[in-house]
């Protein structure tokens, strides 16, 4: 292969130009003072938290990649052998335990870890992830539509199984939404398997539709599409702010909930800044930021909560076994699909 000198020179120059153009386009490059964080946080909350971080660490620029938990999780799995991000933030603990099990996280002990309780950190020492804040499930109840169809507010979960609610309830499908799973896992942990499935059998009779997103049921209740949406209190609070005629009800027995966590990814390019970021996630200023937007934080902070959140939410959160929830996820979802998913057409 004896190429003429001139041509090989030209080829080289061309190759170099292409490579340079490629690097210029490099979208996930590592730079000092810059980290890439995958965030499964709602976009408006993320802006609030991100601003708080920038205020505390103006020297570090965070490139946020925000998406829903499922999309972020899928991306992380695909990037397993070629990690692009430095850290995850606001990921649900159930998903994070799965990522931890696949060895995608690296341990780090953030400054101020001692303030955090055992439930809010991974079992390893130093921890692979630490907790930030949590949210539970809630019944979004449209008062205007309820009056029209003469429905009473539910007091206990079993009420939602009564025939009066037939075709009036929506909830997220646990096979497509983490929020759906946290409800199912909550019921099983509260009532035990047998009673929980018996309750869900009854509830299923009343469900108008299972949605693919955790917040959709509350939105549908807010817009009067259905009277009751099993969903997230934060979404309910946001919709009430906008003027939705909603009551956020937490049944007497308590409610399942999910924790959001942060951690450093194995293969992080900018470890130093990622660690600074992790230190911040458990700092007082971060907790105060979460406290204004979430129901419960990894340690108590004294900030005003949204007035639209139900007052009895925190005491009603069940004692949650996240490891159980993560380990049993595929089994429970398979059982759920066997029972309800084959016939989930809307009922009248």
């Amino acid at each position, binding site marked *: 292969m004896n190429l003429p000198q001139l041509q090989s020179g030209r080829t080289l120059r061309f190759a170099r130009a292409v490579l340079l153009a*490629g*690097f210029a*386009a*490099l*979208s*996930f490059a590592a730079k000092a003072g810059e980290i*890439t964080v995958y965030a499964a946080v*709602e*976009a*408006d*909350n*993320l*802006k609030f938290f991100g601003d708080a971080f920038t205020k505390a660490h103006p020297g570090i620029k965070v490139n*946020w*990649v*925000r*998406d*829903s938990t*499922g*999309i972020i999780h*899928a*991306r992380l*799995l*695909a*990037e*397993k*052998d*070629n990690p*692009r991000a430095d850290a995850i933030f606001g990921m649900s603990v159930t998903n994070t335990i*799965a990522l931890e099990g696949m060895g995608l996280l690296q341990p780090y002990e953030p400054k101020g870890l001692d303030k955090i309780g055992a439930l809010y950190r991974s079992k390893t020492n130093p921890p692979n992830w630490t907790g930030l804040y949590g949210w539970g499930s809630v019944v979004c109840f449209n008062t*205007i539509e309820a009056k029209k169809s003469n429905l009473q507010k539910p007091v206990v979960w079993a009420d939602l199984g009564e025939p009066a609610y037939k075709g009036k309830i929506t909830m997220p*499908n646990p*096979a*497509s939404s983490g929020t759906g799973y946290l409800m199912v896992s909550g019921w099983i942990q509260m009532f035990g398997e047998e009673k929980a499935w018996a309750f869900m059998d009854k509830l299923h009779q009343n*469900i*108008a*539709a*299972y*949605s*693919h*997103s955790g*917040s959709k049921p*509350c*939105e549908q209740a807010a*817009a*009067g*599409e259905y009277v009751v949406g099993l969903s997230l209190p934060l979404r309910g609070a946001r*919709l009430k702010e906008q*003027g*939705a005629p909603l009551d956020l009800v937490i049944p007497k027995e308590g409610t399942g909930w999910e924790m959001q966590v942060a951690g450093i990814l194995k293969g992080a390019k900018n470890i130093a800044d990622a660690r600074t970021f992790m230190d911040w996630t458990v700092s007082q200023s971060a907790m105060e930021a979460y406290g204004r937007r979430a129901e419960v934080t990894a340690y108590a902070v004294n900030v005003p909560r949204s007035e639209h959140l139900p007052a009895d939410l925190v005491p009603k959160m069940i004692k949650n076994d996240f490891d159980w929830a993560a380990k049993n*996820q595929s089994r429970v979802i398979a059982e759920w*699909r*066997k029972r309800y*998913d*084959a*016939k*989930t*057409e*809307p009922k*009248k």
Partner: protein
Amino acid sequence: MSAVALPALRRVVRDRDDWLVLGLILAFGVFFLVALVLPVGIMLSRSLQDTAGNFVGLANYRTYFATPALLQSIANSFFVAALSTLIVVVLAFIYAYALTRSHMPFRTFFKVIAFVPLLMPGLLKAIALVYWFGNQGVLKSALFGASIYGPIGIVSASVLWTFPHAVMILSTALLMSDARLYESAEALKTSRLRTFRLVTLPAVRYGLISTAIFVFIQVLTDFGIPKVIGGGYNVLATDIYKEVVGQQNFAMGAVVSVVLLIPAVAAFIIDRIVTGRQVAQLSARAVPYAPKPSPAFDRAMLIYCSVITVLTLAVIGMAQFAAVVKFWPYNLQFTLAHYSFDVEGVGWDNFGNSLILAFSVATLGCVLSFVSAYLVEKPRHDQKARQVLHMVALIPMAIPGLVLGLGYLLFVNSPSNPLGFLYGTLALLALSTVSHYYTVIHLTAITALKQMDREFESVAASLKVSLVKSFFRVTVPVCAPAILDIWIYLFLNSMTTVSAAIFLYGIHTKLASIAVIHLDEAGRLASAAAMGMLIVYACVVVRLVHVFVSSRVLLRTQRWRATASAS
């Protein structure tokens, strides 16, 4: 070039043009390998692995077929796809017929209206349908107690969404026709209906079948519509979503994708059988048909198109309404507050990204698809290679965007891939988008080319006019309307695309269509509608410029059609 010196293989005598063709076919081979076959192959191969990546044979398939929900999903998928296809083909055929074969006024206007549903991101169509027909909907009673969340919603949204595609393919087919046949029919005093049955229908048979196959497969593989408006009505595409996004089970997601591929392969076989029978409609001596005024018929067509227009405008009007009311349905005061997007990662730069993407995809896809269609249709040699090229170009239609996006994600992140640096760039987004829409643009170009007699090429060859020259001097100008349609089709689709892009956007390359989804996820449905409407405004502007430019180009290249009608 050294190629000229090579001895001719077998007994085929190749001239320079034939070598050019072979070279181009090979270049397309490489393109499709990178842009389609490898990414999709990686994704589908996951169906044979467990979650840890070990080979498990058909175990996932056994698990899947043991799931009771499966048969229901398959039946549901086929039902909504078949029903949507039936409705769309009928509606779009009459519409395209009115556009191309009648003398009704405002034809350009109606042509633009047909594209309106393409301007709207999927979520926007769903919002509009829910506001019209949901439980609080203005016209809820029109459904007689049935729910919009379910098959009715899926079918109506799918009809809305595929209508522009169908009109595009069918108009192309109807545009190319030989006036001499109609003159003969008239001379023989053949009735209008009989002429339609014996001349028009056979001439567009191929277009009709491609449209039906296209719509069927599109509805079958789309997950966006059933996700937002399907309620609990399970279809195969949402099953993939549940596996991949709900439970990160790539293996089972891949299994469902393979199940979805089967009807697509069947469609390909049908397509081959029909193509085998197809002969060119527009012979070199053909005289293009120009419709003659016929008051009663024109009035009927005008009424029909007006009805479709009203329906289309009702949908987009409701979407606009959703963006400017305070809180549906309890507070209908006017507000512009939803147009200020104060959330992380949503802003005008998303919009810039979308525009850059749409322009690059439209231009790149236009060139690629027309050349690939030409290579399939026109050359004399390399029958096998050309068939393979055609087959590969039909694959994208069968691949759900979600699967394509995941395939790209896995492909570009594989450590051994030298193209890894493309991850998160607009270049990769553009490549995946061209690939995603390849089948329809390829088929549109084919339909246009099919109707040009091969004699054009033979004459060019015997006159020793080079392939390149006859391509640019004859083929491209004759097919200019189809090329322009392909451009705008790609542009509009790139502005609203979500399914593949959601896995591939990077830190600085988020698209406006993705921002719509993120706003909805943040509980700001009205803001999502507002962002969606911004996409619509941009699309309308580009579409109007396109109409203006097209009319200029068509005036220059299509004058022969006018001459024919004058004679």
